């Protein structure tokens, strides 16, 4: 396996050299605690404020609305639990969708155990949420709407501008998980009427273990991480300074090149989809044909199972992912694929290829070349295909 082709950028990305370079001094020479008033502290403090500014600019927010967290999961947990607990006097109802990331769904399920009520809105065959469904679900007990900007599995981009408008009209807080969207599409929290937004560094060539939650000024949410006075008393714990610096640099780079990235990835994406579907029968595209993230390809191959596809691809040097239950060690195939109406056995045969900045046409053509044999071999073994 000499050739290595990484096509799982939605799972995680490597850290770009420019990003790592900016981080490095903060591990060693500039290691101070930003809360300290002496020299080492001040230089760290200034650096994290510059990073905050960069994150703010990237999403059209004020720097004072940006809070650093340990990643997308913490941002989601904080936004949802924080708004739920802070809003308890008003009500106990939360609206979300059936295709959110587990960081949202499992948080909501936990809140249900604690007595909250959650509406999980359905999606159509493409994974789109209907804004009218959101409007109809709102009651006078609704304290939060949490709908993702774009889905991590099937890449569908949700109508969050419309949903934001409805939330604003009805006076309900609106949180969006933009973890997959940053760097792939323009986001402006003000024009989108977003009250809270989650993002995570390692999805756009920044480091793992760092993320941010945008909280609009005036939004009332409980703290999630209690302790010291860091992050203006709202998120305790000694700041992950190198991580924050890396996040700032990475989001700056990622948002500066959105048009080019979109153009590049969309071209590769469509070539990959077409190439595979032309060559292999019994394949369907999951997600929306056009309202989808530029780098996302998600296909179901009937009669076979995803993990064995992944492993076969891995043996040929290609890294991808699947919504099969067998891959994740969980018991059901992807809740997203089931939500768009796939039968279990078809959901098991899903393959997600997510493209990144370094992927080339040759990479795409290589996958188009090797995949038919892999699928054919597995189908030959399958009792479902034989039947």
């Amino acid at each position, binding site marked *: 396996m000499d050739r290595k082709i990484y096509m799982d950028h939605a799972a995680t990305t490597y850290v770009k050299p420019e990003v790592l370079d900016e981080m490095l001094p903060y591990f060693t020479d500039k290691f101070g605690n930003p809360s300290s008033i002496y020299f080492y502290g001040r230089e760290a403090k200034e650096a994290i404020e510059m990073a905050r500014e960069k994150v703010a600019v990237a999403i059209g927010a004020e720097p004072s609305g940006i809070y650093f967290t340990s990643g997308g999961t913490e941002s989601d947990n904080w936004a949802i639990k924080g708004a739920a607990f802070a809003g308890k006097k008003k009500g106990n109802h939360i609206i979300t969708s059936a295709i959110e990331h*587990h960081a949202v769904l*499992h948080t909501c*399920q*936990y809140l249900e*155990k604690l007595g909250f009520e959650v509406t999980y809105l359905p999606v159509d065959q493409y994974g789109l949420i209907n804004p009218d469904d959101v409007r109809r679900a709102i009651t006078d007990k609704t304290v939060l709407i949490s709908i993702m900007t774009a889905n991590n599995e099937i890449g569908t981009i949700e109508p969050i501008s419309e949903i934001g408008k409805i939330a604003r009209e009805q006076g309900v807080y609106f949180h969006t998980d933009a973890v997959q969207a940053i760097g792939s599409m323009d986001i402006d929290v003000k024009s989108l009427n977003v009250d809270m937004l989650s993002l995570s560094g390692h999805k756009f060539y920044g480091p793992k273990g760092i993320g941010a939650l945008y909280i609009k000024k005036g939004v009332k949410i409980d703290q999630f991480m209690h302790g010291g006075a860091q992050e203006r008393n709202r998120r305790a714990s000694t700041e992950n300074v190198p991580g924050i610096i890396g996040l700032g640099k990475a989001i700056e780079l990622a948002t500066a090149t959105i048009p080019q990235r979109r153009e590049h990835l969309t071209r590769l994406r469509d070539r990959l989809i077409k190439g595979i579907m032309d060559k292999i029968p019994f394949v369907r595209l999951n997600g929306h044909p056009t309202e989808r993230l530029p780098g996302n390809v998600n296909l179901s191959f009937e*009669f*076979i*199972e*995803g*993990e*064995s596809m992944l*492993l*076969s691809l891995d*043996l040929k040097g290609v890294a991808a992912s699947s919504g*099969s*239950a*067998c*891959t994740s*060690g*969980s*018991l*059901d*195939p992807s809740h997203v694929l089931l939500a768009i109406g796939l*039968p*279990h*056995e078809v959901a*098991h045969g899903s393959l997600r290829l997510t493209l990144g900045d370094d992927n080339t046409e040759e990479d795409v053509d290589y996958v188009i070349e090797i995949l038919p044999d892999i699928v054919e071999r597995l189908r*030959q*073994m*399958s*009792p*479902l295909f*034989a039947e």
Partner: protein
Amino acid sequence: MYSQKVMDHFTNPRNVGEIPDADGVGEVGNPRCGDIMKIFIKVDGDIITDVKFQTFGCAAAIATSSMATELIKGKTLDEALAITNKTVADALDGLPAIKMHCSVLAEDGLRAAIEDYKRKMGLITEDEMAKPHEHIHDCADDEAANG
């Protein structure tokens, strides 16, 4: 994650296919759960002379199917019935914990094929048929541990 033996049996599975005039056929699993296994055997006296399988499932399911067929080929029915999922997993130098249930599939598939043969031969009645394992890979439950 997987041992070399698993990878070997996954990439070069032995005894893949169907036996059109099989003496016994066993089919276990559930496509909803992402795993189905079908085993075909030819029996001569009480010796399993040939065996083939078809599997829809993960690499572990394919490898354990392959290894199980290898283990029973040429064995007596009783010897074959003595083979457990653990025997198969051990023969593959082990399986990751979350994949042990895939080996249960192979064990169940074998038994089902042998029982099918016995039933066809009138050696046992429906009632005497062993129950397959409670399917560990139970699709109906949600991930409880992750709540």
